[in-house]
């Protein structure tokens, strides 16, 4: 079987929907930033959100684990977002439980001012897991999955701020993984990293997609091309085009998409 045939078989094999976004309008006060967004995000695939600044991609990402709840007077005014059939903006949904299932990694690495170990164990302690052996094991597992264990295993008790930028970002990924999420949201996870650290995080994303559904916001077109299975292009709050990444970067159907990814926008 050729590589192309294998790829086609793999593409056919998995099309379970992890997140179902239905006709979502979103407002900050009176300012509408998302307009009737409809999008299915597939399970155990990487979805990249691309588009110029202010197009609503980060807002949409934050609606997926209700991070926008923290912003006053922001709301979904129409439509809904379903994860495994549950409307996650329904009043009955436990937001803490939702954010455990839908973890998030931010643009700038934000480790806690604690040791490397405590950073990863933090979420476990919040969950009430006290058994040291269980916590130790989870910390090792998470750091290993985040491709950081080998680099930090001998200095787990050192302050996380002593790590390089790239290591701090992978630590944040490990902290997210420790609470065993189903979905990981990443908001420009490499924008503050050098090319080597970026390469490691991208490599990690490619490994993690075997187990997790990942949604990445990125301004780096080549990164979207390298790491994602599907890409969605947003402009002025609207989803302009969504397709397999290969299609978007080889033959997008909309001129706006073509102009944006080719750097001919405006």
């Amino acid at each position, binding site marked *: 079987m050729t590589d192309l045939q294998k790829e086609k078989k793999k593409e056919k094999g998995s099309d379970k929907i992890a997140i179902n976004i239905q006709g979502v309008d979103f407002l900050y006060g009176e300012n509408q930033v998302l307009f009737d967004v409809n999008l299915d995000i597939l399970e155990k695939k990487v979805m990249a959100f691309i588009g110029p600044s202010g197009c609503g991609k980060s807002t949409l990402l934050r609606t997926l684990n209700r991070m926008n709840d923290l912003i006053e007077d922001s709301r979904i005014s129409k439509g809904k977002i379903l994860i495994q059939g549950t409307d996650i903006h329904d009043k009955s949904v436990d937001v803490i439980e939702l954010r455990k299932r839908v973890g998030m990694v931010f643009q700038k690495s934000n480790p806690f001012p604690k040791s490397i170990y405590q950073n990863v164990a933090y979420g476990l302690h919040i969950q009430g897991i006290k058994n040291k052996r269980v916590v130790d094991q989870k910390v090792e597992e998470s750091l290993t999955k985040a491709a950081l264990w080998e680099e930090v295993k001998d200095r787990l008790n050192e302050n996380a701020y002593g790590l390089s930028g790239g290591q701090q970002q992978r630590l944040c990924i490990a902290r997210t993984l420790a609470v065993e999420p189903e979905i990981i949201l990443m908001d420009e996870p490499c924008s503050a990293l050098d090319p080597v650290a970026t390469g490691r995080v991208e490599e990690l994303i490619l490994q993690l997609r075997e187990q997790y559904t990942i949604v990445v916001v990125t301004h780096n*077109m080549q990164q979207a*091309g390298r790491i994602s299975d599907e890409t969605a292009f947003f402009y002025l709050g609207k989803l302009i085009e969504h397709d397999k990444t290969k299609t978007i*970067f*080889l*033959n997008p159907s909309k001129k706006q998409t*073509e102009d944006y*990814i*080719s*750097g*001919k926008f405006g």
Partner: protein
Amino acid sequence: MTTYIENNLENIRSKFLLMGQFATDSLQIAMESLLEGDIQKAKIVRKKDEEIDNLENELSASVTSHLSTHAPVATDLRLLVSTMKASHEIERIGDEAKAIARRSKNTAIHDFNKIPEMGEIALDMIRDALSVFAEFDEAKAKNIWTTDLEVDQLNSDNMSFCQDLVNQDPTSASSIFEMLFISKSLERIADHAVNISKEVVFMATSRDVRHAKEFKKSKLRKKSLNTPK
């Protein structure tokens, strides 16, 4: 106002078309050299081939530089990839034309059977492939693929013709073989024109038709037999 990127791409497009023009001229002159027995013209073809080779090098360098510095995608990427590949086909046409011109010196045969006709058709095919590159026309591209069948048939006729000639006069065998090689060169040139047009289809539509079953020669042949003339 055109951007730096657009200028770059336009420059690459123009280089390709210039290569194509040189290859067309080359074949035209090679055929004249053969049919008129004009040895001087063979020299012009050799010179043209050098120019084609230089242009291919320039075009490759421009494409590589653009790929490495601009990381193009979508239409731009397809243009670069297809042009680079198609430029190799043009370079091969130049080589075949040079071979025809070189062999024209060694053949003492006066009846070229189907070779003049093959030359005309091959020239039209290259011109059509270049015109499809300049302005995409899928029907015209497909027409090149069916015309290729005619060239194959003419090549096959030439083979039988040469076989008969050898039987009649075995002492002229070396001249006859030259003629056979010339016929084969023209058949290859037609194939290169087909390959260029297939690259252009990818460039314009992103469909890779190079090995598509429906466009294989056997299928096209069957289809053309079933189509009433």
